[in-house]
């Protein structure tokens, strides 16, 4: 205890030097904590945003082969699908039925190519939580011909609330069709791709793509019981596997193992997202179905993880974390060299003092521990300041709205969020503590080995 008190007092004797050394440790930890927290937040937000934009973490699409051999993306009756989900005994928070098409939205002379997703707006809707409306309201989607378009699309078309947009598209059987939408709301761009950002009502989209009012094209399953931010988290694959197993006992399913980069929906979409994401996804669905003829509707199941892994999101986050860790190591090497040099200076300055306390009977071990305790206090102060500073900056960043842009998909309604795995932080703290003590160990041992007589005889 006495050692700790002396160590603390020694640090206070050279406040400026202690502050700089602790500050260096704090800075290193602050940077790494911020980067790791932001990377984790980006990963979670992208998964959450995708889950909400696409309507779940597990998706089922149907593909029917018509008598003429044409393949049509449609789910006529989902009773077997719902029964399979119940059989699988997975926690389901919400089911989202959707249909979609890629069409040309027109207003006057202006036009844009746009993917329009039809959703049910009568009850709860996942988009309500995630989509930030700049103008208009979700209530306006009671209009069966209402459409929510992004700011960017509205600007391209010169569209305002209430404007009528003509849409030109192709039906599920590739027939030319034309319809009209009324602009019900204008949203923030969710980023990544403009083509993900227009929403209409399911019945009207069904009419336009020429499928029945009770039919749809994709069923999104939002798995429940996993708390906020668990969209891409644990258990999605396991739950999807259970649903797939139950599904395969009731309906014809496409082999999940048969998925390749050519048939993967997200791979196809990312490859062609600027040109035609809807067609790319449909093309991948056809490829996965294979050429062997089948009767009725064949179903494909895929997960948000399948989508995100194809988007190389985990790899991206892993790379960010890796870079952050390398930055931490570089900072630590600099800090270690700094601490070693500083402690050498300290020992040189305090040689006579060391000689005195050694002459008074203090053991070598205690002298060594005295310096190690000083180093530990430096680490402790630095760690507290670093983590505290990181927390403060995170808090400020969370309050800032970064709005739209290509990074919006990484944000939670325009704001940053941070996910800091406790294990990772503890490992980093132990590493910094260990290296700080290691840096101080050699000068401390040198101090402990000093002969009291020679130390006292030294000229300061």
């Amino acid at each position: 205890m006495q050692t700790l008190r002396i160590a603390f007092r020694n640090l206070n004797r050279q406040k400026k030097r202690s502050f700089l050394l602790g500050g260096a440790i704090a800075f290193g930890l602050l940077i790494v904590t911020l980067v790791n927290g932001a990377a984790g937040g980006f990963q979670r937000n992208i998964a959450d945003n995708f889950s909400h934009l696409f309507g779940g973490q597990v998706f089922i699409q149907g593909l029917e082969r018509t008598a003429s051999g044409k393949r049509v993306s449609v789910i006529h009756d989902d009773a077997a699908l719902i029964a399979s989900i119940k059989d699988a005994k997975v926690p389901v928070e919400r089911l989202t039925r959707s249909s979609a098409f890629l069409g040309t939205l027109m207003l006057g002379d202006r036009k844009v190519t746009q993917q329009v997703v039809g959703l049910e707006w009568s009850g709860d809707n996942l988009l309500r939580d995630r989509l930030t409306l700049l103008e208009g309201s979700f209530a306006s989607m009671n209009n069966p011909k209402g459409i929510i378009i992004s700011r960017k699309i509205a600007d391209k078309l010169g569209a305002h609330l209430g404007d009528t947009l003509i849409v030109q598209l192709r039906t599920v059987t590739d027939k030319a069709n034309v319809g009209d939408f009324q602009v019900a709301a204008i949203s923030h761009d969710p980023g990544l791709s403009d083509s993900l950002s227009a929403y209409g009502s399911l019945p009207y989209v069904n009419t336009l793509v020429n499928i029945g009012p009770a039919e749809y094209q994709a069923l999104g399953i939002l798995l429940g019981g996993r708390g906020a931010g668990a969209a891409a988290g644990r258990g999605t694959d396991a739950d999807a596997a259970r649903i797939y197993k139950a599904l395969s006992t009731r309906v014809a399913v496409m082999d999940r193992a048969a998925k390749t980069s050519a048939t993967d929906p997200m791979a196809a979409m990312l490859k062609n997202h600027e040109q035609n994401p809807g067609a790319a996804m449909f093309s991948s669905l056809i490829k996965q179905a294979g050429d062997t003829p089948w009767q009725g509707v064949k179903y494909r199941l895929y997960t948000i993880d399948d989508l995100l892994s194809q988007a190389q999101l985990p790899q991206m986050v892993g790379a960010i974390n890796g870079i952050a860790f390398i930055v931490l190591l570089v900072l630590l090497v600099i800090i270690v060299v700094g601490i070693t040099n500083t402690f050498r200076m300290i020992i040189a300055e305090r040689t006579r003092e060391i000689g005195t306390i050694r002459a008074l009977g203090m053991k070598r071990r205690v002298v060594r521990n005295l310096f190690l305790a000083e180093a530990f206090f430096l680490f402790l102060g630095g760690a507290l300041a670093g983590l505290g500073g990181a927390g403060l900056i995170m808090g400020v960043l969370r309050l800032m709205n970064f709005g739209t842009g290509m990074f919006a998909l990484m944000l939670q309604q325009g704001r940053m969020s941070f996910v800091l795995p406790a294990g990772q932080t503890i490992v980093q703290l132990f590493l910094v503590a260990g290296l700080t003590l290691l840096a101080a160990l050699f000068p401390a041992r040198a101090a402990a080995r000093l002969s009291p007589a020679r130390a006292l005889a030294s000229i300061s």
Partner: protein
Amino acid sequence: MNITFRRPAAVRRATLLATLVVALLPAAAPPAAVWAAPDLPGILKRIDTVTNFATDFAGVYTAYVESPGESPVTMQARMFRRDTEGKFVILVTAPSAQKGQGYLEVDDNLWFYDPTSRLFTHSSLKENWQSSDAMNSDFYRTNYARDYSVDSWTEGTLGSYPVYILELKGTNAEVTYPWKRIWVRKENGLILKSEDYSLSKWLMRSAYYPTYAQIGNQFVATKMLFVDELNKGHKTQLTLTEPSTQPVASSTFTKAYIESVSR
């Protein structure tokens, strides 16, 4: 001396009755659809018969594309058709930016060749030709008898020509437009005007065929005007010159030919 003839009363009554009958007959007559329905499938078949060639056909098309706020663009392309086998080749010869691009319809597949990438990509008859208001199918043989059924019809005149006005419904998904209204000249079965509708019966395009050239027993439109009804102000005029029914080498309808002439 003025002599006045006065018809007997019986004659006057008979004349009055005849006048009334003549006057009221059209009103009492059943509509044309009931009492004089033409052979509607026959009309569609006749359109195909008079416009599709039993021989090879070739010609040069000049497209004049107008869009609001943009300078008009003139394009030229040489076309070869073999209707009996459902094949055609179109080679773009102008402007220089598109020169060398080609279309090949063979085995019910339409391929588009880009000399820049030297790649053939799959295209569709339903797509616009070279971003104009003409569709790729406008260059292809017609198959009205197979692709459409007559949903309703009436008679009328277009200009000075008596025509059948047929409302057609697509019978398969391969048609470019699910609904059409066509003005067919009674005299020779040629389409003078067409309105092309979406599945929701929204007018998408109007097409006018003011002039035809007769080659043997067949007719080919030498002037076509396509008006985009969704994008106001967009229109394309196609003019055909150098029509020919001379035999075309079979090797013309191959990818290799398009590649070789595009170099």
